[in-house]
C-alpha cells in the first residue's frame, strides 16, 4: 500500500470497525482509538518494515509496542486488516473465549501482540528491552512504541526515559499521543504536566513534533524525520497532536468518549460520517 488515498480509505474503515466493536459489547475505548487511527494505519501499512510471515519471534523486522492498551479497538482493527488474524475475529472483541481481550495480551495467542498492556506506564520499559535485544542481535530494525499523554503521569515512564537517554537507546521511536484528555478531564485539569517537549529534551531525547496528528501525510513526514534521527546516540520522541474521537463529530474534543460506547442512534450517526470503504467485517 502506498498512496495516501488508500491509507485514508483504510483509516475510514478502521473508524467503522472501532465504532462497531465497542457498540456491540457496549464497552471499550473509542475516543483514544479514533484519535490514533491515522497513526496506526500509517505505521502498519507504510512506516514499519515488517515480515510478511507474521511470525512472532521478533527478529529481523521493526516492532511496535502499545503501552496505553485501552485503545485496543484501533490496534485490533489495524492488525486484522494488515493480515495478522482474520478480520471476522473483530466480532469477538471483549466476548468470552475471545483472543481479543479488553486490553491486548499475548496470553490468548493473538498474533501481532508482543506484550500485555493496559495497566499504564509499562510499555516504554518493554520497548527499551526489545531495542537493546535488537542491538545485541545486530538487527538494525527499529522499535516503535505509543503512549498516552495522561499515561506519562505514571512514574515508571520517567525511569525508562532516563535510562534510554543515559544508555543511548537510539533505535527507539516512542510516540506520545498528545490529545490533552484523560478519564477525569483534560490533562491540565487532572495533573498539569507542563511542557512534555521540554521534559523529554531535558532528559536527553530528540523530540519531533507532529502538529497534525490526524493527517496521514503529516504523520508520514514526521515519522520520516524521526527515523532520520535514529542511530545518532539519542532515543527519539514523537509528540503526536491528535484529537480524541477524531472522525466522529460528537466524540471530538472531549474526554467524554474515553471509555464509553455509542448507543444504536449514535453508532448510526458515526457510521454515516464514515462511509464503508474496504467492507465491514
Amino acid at each position, binding site marked *: 500500500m502506498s498512496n495516501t488515498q488508500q491509507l485514508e480509505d483504510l483509516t475510514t474503515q478502521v473508524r467503522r470497525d472501532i465504532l462497531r466493536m465497542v457498540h456491540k459489547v457496549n464497552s471499550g475505548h473509542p475516543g483514544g482509538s479514533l484519535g490514533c487511527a491515522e497513526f496506526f494505519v500509517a505505521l502498519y501499512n507504510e512506516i514499519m518494515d515488517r515480515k510478511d510471515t507474521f511470525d512472532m519471534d521478533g527478529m529481523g523486522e521493526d516492532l511496535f509496542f502499545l503501552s496505553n492498551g485501552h485503545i485496543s479497538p484501533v490496534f485490533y482493527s489495524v492488525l486484522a486488516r494488515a493480515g495478522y488474524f482474520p478480520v471476522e475475529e473483530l466480532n469477538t472483541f471483549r466476548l468470552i473465549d475471545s483472543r481479543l481481550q479488553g486490553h491486548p495480551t499475548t496470553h490468548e495467542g493473538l498474533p501481532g501482540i508482543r506484550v500485555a498492556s493496559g495497566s499504564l506506564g509499562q510499555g516504554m520499559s518493554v520497548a527499551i528491552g526489545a*531495542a537493546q535485544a535488537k542491538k*545485541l542481535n545486530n538487527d538494525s530494525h527499529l522499535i516503535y512504541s505509543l503512549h498516552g499523554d495522561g499515561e506519562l503521569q505514571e512514574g515508571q515512564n520517567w*525511569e525508562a526515559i532516563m535510562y534510554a537517554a543515559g544508555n543511548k537507546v537510539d533505535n527507539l521511536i516512542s510516540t506520545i499521543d498528545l490529545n490533552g484528555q484523560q478519564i477525569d478531564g483534560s490533562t491540565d485539569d487532572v495533573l498539569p504536566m507542563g511542557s512534555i517537549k521540554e521534559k523529554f529534551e531535558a532528559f536527553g531525547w530528540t523530540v519531533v513534533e507532529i502538529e497534525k496528528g490526524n493527517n496521514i501525510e503529516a504523520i508520514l513526514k514526521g515519522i520520516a524525520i524521526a527515523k532520520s534521527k535514529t542511530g545518532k546516540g539519542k532515543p527519539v520522541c514523537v509528540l503526536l497532536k491528535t484529537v480524541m474521537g477524531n472522525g466522529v463529530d460528537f466524540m471530538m474534543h472531549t474526554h467524554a468518549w474515553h471509555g464509553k460506547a455509542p448507543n444504536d442512534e449514535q453508532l448510526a450517526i458515526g457510521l454515516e460520517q464514515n462511509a464503508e470503504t474496504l467492507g465491514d467485517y
Partner: protein
Amino acid sequence: MLSTKREGLLKIKELIKQIPIFVGITMKTYTNTGNKDTRSGFGAGLTELGQTNEKVVALCADLIGSLKMDDFKKNHPERFFQVGIAEANMIGMAAGLTIGGKIPFTGTFANFSTGRVYDQIRQSVAYSDKNVKICASHAGLTLGEDGATHQILEDIGLMKMLPGMTVINTCDYNQTKAATIAIAEHQGPVYLRFGRPSVPNFTDEDQKFEIGKAVQLTEGTDVTIVATGHLVWEALEAAKTLNEQGISAEVINIHTIKPLDDAAIIKSVKKTGCVVTAEEHNFLGGLGESVARVLALNHPAPQEFVATQDTFGESGTPAQLMEKYGLNSASIINAAQKVAKRKK
C-alpha cells in the same frame, strides 16, 4: 507363637535394643563443607551461564556487589544492563529483552524484586508469558541489621499467586548455583529466592537441580519435616536431636515451592502421619500453606508451621532474629514434638 515365656521376653528385649540402633543407622547425616552465602552461589551460577549460554543477559538495579554479579558484568559487559535504582524499568526491560530471544536474569533484593514491582511482574512478565528470571537476594529476616524495610517475609506468597510463575527458594551455596544454571533451561518466568548470610554448605557440589522435585534428605517414620531455604539445615540439625529423643524425622528439602512436589509430600506424610513445615517467611502465603492445601485435598494430617507469625521483622543479627522469630532448629524440634503428639 513363641514356645516359651523366656523366649518371648528375650525377643522383646532384643527388639527394644534394636530400636535406637535401627534409627541411628538410617539417619543419614550431612557435613557442612564450610559456611557460604547463597547469593554467591547465584553469582557463581550466573558466571557459568555467561560462558555457556550466549542468550543469557543480566540486569541489576544498583546492587551488583550485593548480588555477586561482578564477574558476569566484567566478562560480558555487552550483556549486562545496569539500570540504576529503577526496579520497575528493570522488570519491563527484562520482558522486552525476551522478545529478541534473550534470557534475562534480574538482580536486586527480594523486597525490591517483588512487592515494589508486583504489577510490572504481573502484567509485563507473568501475564505476558515472558521468559524472565527474577533473582532475589537478601530475602527474609537474615538480611539482618537493615531491618523490616528490607526484610521481606511476604515474597513467596506474592510470587506463588501469579499464574505460571515458578517459585524456588534454595538452601545453600551449591544448590543456589545449581538452581541458577537450571532455570536458564526452563521456559517461563521464575522467581529464585536466596539470601545474604553465610550458612552451612552441605548439598552436593555437582548436584543435578530438578525444578519441582523434592529432595528427601533423611528417612524417618514419626514426623515429616518439609523445609525450604535457610531452614533446611536447621531441619537437619533438628532431626539429629529428635533422633536422639527417639523421634524419627524425615526431612524433605523443598527448593521448589511452585510447582510443589505433591507426590513426595503425600508419600512421606502417609508414612509418618504428621508434618512440620519450616520457612523464613510469613506463615500466611508461604510453603506451609501450600503443603496444608496438598494434605487437605489428599491426606489430611496434623501440621505445625515454623514461620513468622504475620509480623514484620526488625534490626538485629541474623541469628538473633531467627531465634526471636522462632525460625531455628529449636523451634523445629518443639514443633515436631508437638505435632507428633497430635497424631491419633
